[in-house]
């Protein structure tokens, strides 16, 4: 029975030594340049021939184009991104999916693999069965198929690696912390799988063996998860939250390093909720990343 109640002033924020502040950091209203020779990009606006930042973030320049990359924003998708989303609404021939973007994404009935995996045209019966496949609140992993003209995303799950997610836990972080990688599905050596969605939704689940899970997630195993697996998932959950809080980029390597750092200092899973433990673990992982790259 632990109550960890502390005063704000007693919480020591250890300055992370190797962390260096990014160059060209701006806040909304900051003048980026008074030179009129540049082009106005995302996150900027022009007034009296001066270029101002309209979001907080880092200034990026490509030739004559100046944009500000926001530090915290909603997810703006690109074709091919892997996302994790939650079904918000079942509609006509489509599901509305919450993917942390400005508008709900659409998952068309024609762009899912139906249970059983056979490929065929979708019939009116399938349309009536939509809620049986995916209902409100269900989590899915999917790929961005197209971006509509208004910025909304169209998703697809036409591969066995995508589909409905079973038991596990979702962590929400800022999408700017997720690096674009070749693969976003990771079976970590510690016995858990992680899907690092480009939209900042991260799914952690106990690893299931491959051949059993060839149904696209439509058959779910709701048996209790072993305590050892659960502990791994919980530890990863806390590690990822700690990394997000300390603005550390998320990739499979950095997640594993943080996880191993947390084991190395011999902390209990719940100890990772304490701020000093968080910063210690993240600092250790950062140092290791730095030395090994």
């Amino acid at each position, binding site marked *: *029975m632990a*109550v960890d*109640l502390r005063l704000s*002033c007693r919480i020591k924020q250890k300055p992370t030594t190797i962390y260096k502040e990014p160059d060209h950091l701006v806040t909304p209203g900051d003048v980026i340049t008074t030179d009129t020779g540049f082009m106005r990009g995302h996150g900027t606006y022009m007034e009296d021939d001066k270029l101002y930042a309209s979001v907080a973030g880092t200034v990026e320049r490509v030739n004559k184009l100046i944009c500000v990359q926001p530090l915290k924003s909603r997810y703006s998708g690109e074709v091919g991104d892997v996302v994790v989303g939650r079904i918000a609404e079942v509609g006509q021939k489509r599901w509305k999916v919450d993917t942390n973007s400005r508008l709900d994404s659409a998952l068309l009935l024609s762009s899912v693999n139906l249970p059983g995996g056979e490929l065929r045209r979708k019939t009116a019966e399938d349309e009536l069965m939509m809620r049986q496949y995916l209902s409100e609140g269900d989590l899915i992993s999917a790929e961005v198929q197209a971006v509509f003209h208004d910025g909304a995303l169209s998703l697809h799950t036409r591969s066995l690696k995508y589909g409905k997610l079973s*038991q596990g836990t979702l962590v929400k972080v800022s999408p700017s912390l997720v690096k674009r990688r070749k693969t976003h599905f990771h079976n970590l050596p510690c016995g858990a799988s992680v899907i690092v969605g480009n939209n900042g939704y991260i799914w952690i689940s106990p690893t299931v063996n491959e051949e059993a899970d060839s149904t696209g997630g439509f058959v779910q195993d709701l048996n209790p998860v072993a*305590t050892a697996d659960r502990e791994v998932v919980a530890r990863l959950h806390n590690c990822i*939250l700690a990394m997000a809080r300390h603005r550390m980029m998320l990739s499979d390597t950095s997640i594993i390093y943080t996880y191993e750092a947390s084991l190395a200092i011999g902390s209990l*899973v719940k100890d990772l909720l*304490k701020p000093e433990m968080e910063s210690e673990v993240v600092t250790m992982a950062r140092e290791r990343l730095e030395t090994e790259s």
Partner: protein
Amino acid sequence: MTDLLLSEAEKMFIIHGVQDNLRVDGRSCDDYRHIELETDVVSSANGSARLKLSQTDVLVGVKADLTTPPTDNPDVGTLEFFVDCSANAAPTFEGRGGEDLARDISSTLARAYSSDRCSSSMLKALCVVPSEQCWVLYIDILILECGGSLYDAVSIAVKAALSSTKVPVVKVTSSDGGKPELELSDDPYDSLRINVKHAPCNVTLSKIGHSHVVDASLEEEVCSLASLMMAVTEEGTVTMLKKSACGSLHPESIYEMLETGKNVGLNLNKQLTRQLLDEECLHTQMGTNREPKGFL
């Protein structure tokens, strides 16, 4: 509170985790998340506190005013609770959306503080002239962010804010024609402190599956069918008991929950008192040099 959706599998994962006494974030069933507390954050209030319980963020301000005491209790001061749910906390709070919740929190607090023990030790001191003048403390609670177990966070913050409250000392000089004349002390540091020894802290126990947990996160609150709220004082007296949500509770499990709630409440109060003492020491040491951390 918030319309958070969870899939069946996620709910199963949470429920089985509670059964295993290992929750999604590694806590056991009777663990609280990390709580961060700061008092005296609002300089214009008589007392204030800001509390962060993981994502839950609460700001409490206390303002003292003179008023005539209630006729049925002429020798005590009064407490007035007012809760404001900021639309920043949840989009559903926009406009009048948060009013139901706000009313519920303030009535729960008022009930918790209405016990005899509490009023005799705390509110007696707020009386200036019996049946003529007394202090009323307006306790304004601002909910900035919701991340589960809001009632607990609010009650701890209220207790902390009350303990930091400084009510000016008032002298009754003369009473010509039956009307007492009040004189405020010239020294701004000459102030009356409130004894919060008997102020209760709220402990919410949420029934999830066959077990119960304290300090449920938003996800866990979705999985819980019924919960029991109890206000526990430092001595273990339960001053308020309330069942919320639609589900039912078995009498046996109520006994179990009461037992856990009491133990957790005792521990919570003990920790809080220790931290408040520490804060008090810091204040006297640093004096006006203290830099409040506030919202930075």
